[in-house]
């Protein structure tokens, strides 16, 4: 499909030029990086004409102001979200690892090597290719047994006008289990573009809980991808909380590869001002007797926009699949907007799949009930918004994080 003339046409457009120029400033790119760049440029940076990017423009996120991060030191942040944690914490500041994990059964290493998970054909590969082209160090987290203690990874970014690709590869051995909190933050006025990719290879009968909190500064762009392979009888619980940033695109791809495997997803898109929060979720049931349940909620205020695209694929022989995808959206301002498209693509005949989406304002009857008990209108609205939002994280994240999220989102407890 790609010819050299196509390639040239692509190269002329701004964003492609920006990325290839940036790449040229890498001193010694590896073969893997070079290949990723070639793939990236062959496909071209997505535009609004690209089906999967119809509602999200990359015009500002990939601007010609961007440069790569020189190795620098910076102040290690003490983020309030992490204050109450009794956990193993490490910080990744501007791409550099600070601290270590000292739990037996969990090993964190830095590597120059990228072990990309095989990607399904529907994924356009843009975020992956960009990540691999620009990633300097890959963090490898190996979980080899049951780990009770929380593992917390805090990615923080402070360098203006930069493009930074972090990569976290989690490999969970057979029968292992762990709860991992990943927090992404940046200085509030930071106009940088972050391209974090997390992969998980969940071994047979492993249980991994991943809590991804995106609370980037209000000028920061994020192009993220989370990709998981679930082997037999594994359980992957993924809680994704999109709170900060100017624009956050997050592609979540889950390949359910082994019988008895289960994926449980909870997602909050919490938009205010002019934020754009875009999640694309693709869950592939490749084999029979697998399950997934996904609940995605957007609460959008002011002029914020939410985009949710979710698809469950069930392959021909994947009988006895149980899958459920629900997307509920609350629009708090007449200028807020949601584009939602939950879909099923099912080739097996003996499956139980459901999907649905709702868009609404606050329930009038509930508001009346609360006000009739003496709560003023504003308080009643807040109570209902917090109930809606909290259902995406209550009981799913450690209680210190629940408390911090309540405070961060202005919910009373």
């Amino acid at each position, binding site marked *: 499909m790609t010819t050299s003339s196509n390639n040239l046409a692509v190269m002329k457009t701004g964003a492609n030029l920006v990325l290839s120029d940036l790449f040229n400033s890498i001193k010694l790119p590896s073969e893997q990086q070079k290949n990723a760049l070639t793939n990236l440029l062959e496909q071209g940076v997505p535009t609004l004409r690209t089906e999967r990017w119809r509602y999200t423009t990359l015009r500002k996120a990939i601007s010609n102001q961007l440069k790569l991060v020189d190795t620098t030191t910076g102040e290690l942040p003490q983020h309030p979200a992490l204050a109450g944690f009794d956990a193993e914490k490490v910080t990744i500041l501007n791409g550099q690892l600070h601290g270590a994990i000292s739990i037996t059964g969990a090993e964190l290493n830095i590597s120059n090597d990228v072990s990309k998970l095989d990607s399904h054909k529907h994924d356009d590969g843009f975020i992956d290719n960009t990540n691999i082209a620009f990633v300097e160090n890959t963090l490898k987290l190996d979980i080899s047994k049951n780990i009770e203690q929380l593992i917390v990874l805090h990615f923080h970014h402070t360098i203006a006008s930069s493009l930074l690709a972090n990569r976290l590869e989690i490999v969970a051995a057979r029968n292992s289990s762990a709860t991992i909190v990943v927090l992404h933050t940046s200085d509030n006025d930071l106009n940088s573009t972050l391209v974090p990719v997390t992969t998980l290879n969940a071994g047979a009968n492993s249980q991994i809980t991943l809590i991804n909190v995106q609370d980037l500064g209000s000028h920061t762009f994020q192009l993220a991808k989370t990709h998981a392979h679930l082997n037999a009888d594994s359980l992957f619980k993924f809680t994704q909380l999109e709170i900060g940033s100017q624009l956050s695109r997050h592609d979540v791809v889950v390949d359910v590869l082994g019988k008895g495997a289960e994926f449980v997803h909870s997602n909050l898109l919490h938009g205010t001002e002019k934020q754009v929060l875009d999640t694309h979720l693709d869950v592939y049931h490749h084999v029979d007797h697998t399950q997934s349940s996904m609940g995605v909620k957007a609460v959008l205020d002011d002029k914020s926009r939410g985009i949710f695209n979710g698809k469950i694929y069930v392959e021909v022989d994947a009988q006895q699949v149980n899958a459920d995808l629900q997307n509920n959206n609350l629009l708090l301002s007449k200028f807020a907007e949601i584009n939602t498209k939950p879909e099923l693509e099912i080739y097996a005949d003996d499956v139980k799949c459901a999907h649905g989406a709702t868009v609404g304002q606050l329930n009038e009857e509930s508001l009346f009930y609360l*006000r009739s008990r003496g*709560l003023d209108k504003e308080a009643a609205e807040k109570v209902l918004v917090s109930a809606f939002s909290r*259902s995406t994280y209550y009981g799913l994240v450690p209680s210190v994080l629940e408390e911090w999220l309540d405070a961060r989102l202005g919910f009373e407890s």
Partner: protein
Amino acid sequence: MLEIKNLQASIENNKILNGINLSIKAGEVHAIMGPNGSGKSTLASVLAGRTEYEITGGSVTFNGKDLFDLEIEERAREGLFLAFQYPQEIPGVNNVYLLKAAVNAVRKHRGQDEFDAYDFLSLVKEKVKFMEMDEKFLHRGVNEGFSGGEKKRNEILQMLMLEPQLAVLDETDSGLDIDALKVVSKGVNAMRSEERGILMVTHYQRLLDYIKPDFVHVLVNGKIVKSGDHTLALELEAKGYDWLLDAEAA
């Protein structure tokens, strides 16, 4: 305490209330009875401030204030309480959280300090016990998954906590078995006092065996067509509503 004068209300251009006159003084218990669709819930909703209804005539004063000048929550804070016929389920909002927010909103309005957590909790627990409810209901979502009877108990629990001046009870007896009816009646009777007014709306006279009203009014087609003492309820029980409907039509 409550003066309703020639109250008329409509919804979507249908007149539902056709000139209601009713005066409730402190210490009195009134019952409004009437056939289905006569406008009982409409009257209760209009008093509580539901906005779908258009007030097309008449006036209501509550403790000397024009009720229609007050927002929904202001009415509640002034001491008006509506126990709903169909209490709303609000998943994700803790029952005990709502109780606390409600009680504190009312206390603040009265110039009282907010309850401290300990005092509040011991009071709630006492009332929960009185209503013969399980404490676990406090930590569930408001009315979430409650049975019909549990919802009604929960309404009365809220009333006991809020100690309103005027309680309007809309079909609080409907859907209750005899034991639940006794508990709910016990709750209502506990609220009877010289300072308080109670307006019970009911289709059946069964409730009035447990809560004896001082006055009984019969509402037909949005109008009070007959008033009397508690013996009127017994008469209705014996004769039904038809003789009044006929009288109204004549």
